[in-house]
């Protein structure tokens, strides 16, 4: 099965949908591995929200594309170079500081993204945004609270958080290299970056974290389906069954 994308709006929405999906899969890895039971449940909640969000976005994409493919086709039948998530969300759960920092950086971005998309001309998308924005409030509350606990908790937690941030910041620059498609469907691209930088800098300064200068890396853009090496492993696990049994049906 070769998945094709015809419409610009679909192309654009894949960036958001894939980002939700890949982060959801990453967060699901914490199931039965969280620091304590309440946190296990909270992370599962965030993961479920993200899977649900991805599924709804794939449905909207499928409609735009004339229902040539289903959401499950999009999830289980595309290859590495056909995914368009930001690289930030495919980074692994090295420790809990990575998990939280990645989520926090994503949530701040996602809040402004879905705020802007709620004035889209696509009514289905607008409807989804009002639901998603409530979920993001919860998720952001969760990830931001943890940033404070980890940044200001102990010397070790501060160091681990600093290490996670130093690494993950490398994958931020590309998010704000907006192209024409972004400019067509976001109402104010520059504001996405402004809001993100302000909130990140504010929180970092309050939690005793230094924002080091990151040299721009020669890293190709996620908008063209470029990834870190992690994506292939993530997909090979996620897509194993439908790939191994192409004739089987799964509910």
């Amino acid at each position, binding site marked *: 099965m070769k998945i094709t994308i015809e419409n610009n709006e679909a192309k654009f929405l894949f960036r958001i949908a894939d980002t939700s999906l890949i982060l959801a899969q990453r967060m699901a890895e914490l*199931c*039965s591995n969280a620091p304590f039971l309440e946190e296990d449940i909270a992370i*599962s909640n965030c*993961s*479920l929200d993200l899977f649900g969000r991805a599924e709804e976005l794939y449905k909207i994409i499928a409609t735009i594309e004339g229902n040539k493919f289903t959401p499950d086709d999009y999830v289980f039948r595309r290859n590495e170079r056909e995914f368009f998530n930001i690289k930030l969300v495919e980074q692994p759960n090295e420790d809990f500081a990575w998990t939280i920092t990645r989520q926090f950086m994503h949530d701040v971005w996602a809040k402004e993204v879905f705020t802007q998309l709620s004035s889209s001309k696509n009514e289905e998308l607008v409807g989804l945004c009002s639901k998603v924005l409530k979920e993001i409030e919860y998720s952001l509350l969760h990830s931001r609270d943890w940033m404070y606990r980890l940044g200001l*908790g102990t010397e070790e937690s501060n160091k*681990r958080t600093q290490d996670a941030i130093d690494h993950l910041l490398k994958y931020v620059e590309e998010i704000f290299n907006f192209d024409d498609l972004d400019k067509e469907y976001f109402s104010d691209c520059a504001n996405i970056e402004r809001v993100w930088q302000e909130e990140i800098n504010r929180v970092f300064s309050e939690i005793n974290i230094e924002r080091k200068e990151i040299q721009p890396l020669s890293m190709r853009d996620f908008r063209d389906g470029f990834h870190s090496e992690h994506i292939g492993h993530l997909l090979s696990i996620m897509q194993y069954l439908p790939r191994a049994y192409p004739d089987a049906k799964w509910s």
Partner: protein
Amino acid sequence: MDKFEQAFNQIIEDDLKVEPRDWMPEKYRQTNIRQISQHAHSEIIGMQPEGNWLLRAPSLRSKQVLLAKIQDEAGHGLYLYSVAETLGISRQEMNEQLHNQTAKYSSIFNYPTVTWADMGAVGWLVDGAAIVNQVSLQRTSYGPYARAMVRICKEESFHQRQGYEIMCQMAFGTAAQKEMAQDALNRFWEPALMMFGPHDADSVHKGQSMAWKIKRESNDHLRQRFIDRTVPQAEYLGLTIPDKGLKFNEETGHYETSPFNWDEFWNVVNGNGPCNQERLDHHKKAHNDNRWVREAAEAYAEKTEAQVA
């Protein structure tokens, strides 16, 4: 017998509930702690064999349903730890008992889940067996436990349907899927029946627990109910129960099975099942690797409370 003991006996006799602040015999307290913490640990360790397939679930829907189900189990564990806490043991103590193996959990979770069909078999058979037991426990004499069971049973019946749905999909699917379904049934059938515990004649805790109405029905009685309910479900799926001696007794109206392999049961209970070590190591690793996170949260709470004060 003093007036406290008399009052306690009266509660049991009248089929009322014992509440946390009531006087109770120390052995009643300890038996409940043992049973409730064992139940809680089972919910928590039970997350692992299902978590094993979470990242590989074959559709968006099945992945979300499975994650929600495992999350329910975490919730049940949390709820049950709280019930046990009303009897004067802390969650930390229970966790230590799990790690030093003085507390047990259901042996069924020491079996590996090797194919996706096992997600069906676990929901259908393991949760199915658990429900039969837990419905009975809705009438247990310790009030908080009985009330917890009412709530937990509602979610468990959803879990069983989720499992049976997967079994249907597999059994009515391609030849490869049907083969996986049969294989899962073959592996989980007898371990699921042994979840009800030893035969009544060999059950150590039976007498006093029945007298105190902690346990309301015998192991064999509950097991028979499960078998009678499950055999027709397997027939509907077109799958074969892996017991050549299985037959329906027209006179009693019950199915009869071949003798179980109790040597395997006791060997798994005593720590020598296929995944005992892995389950425990997984739990310890998550706990120990994240110690710094809990320390950070505590340190932060102390600092911010100090500021408020």
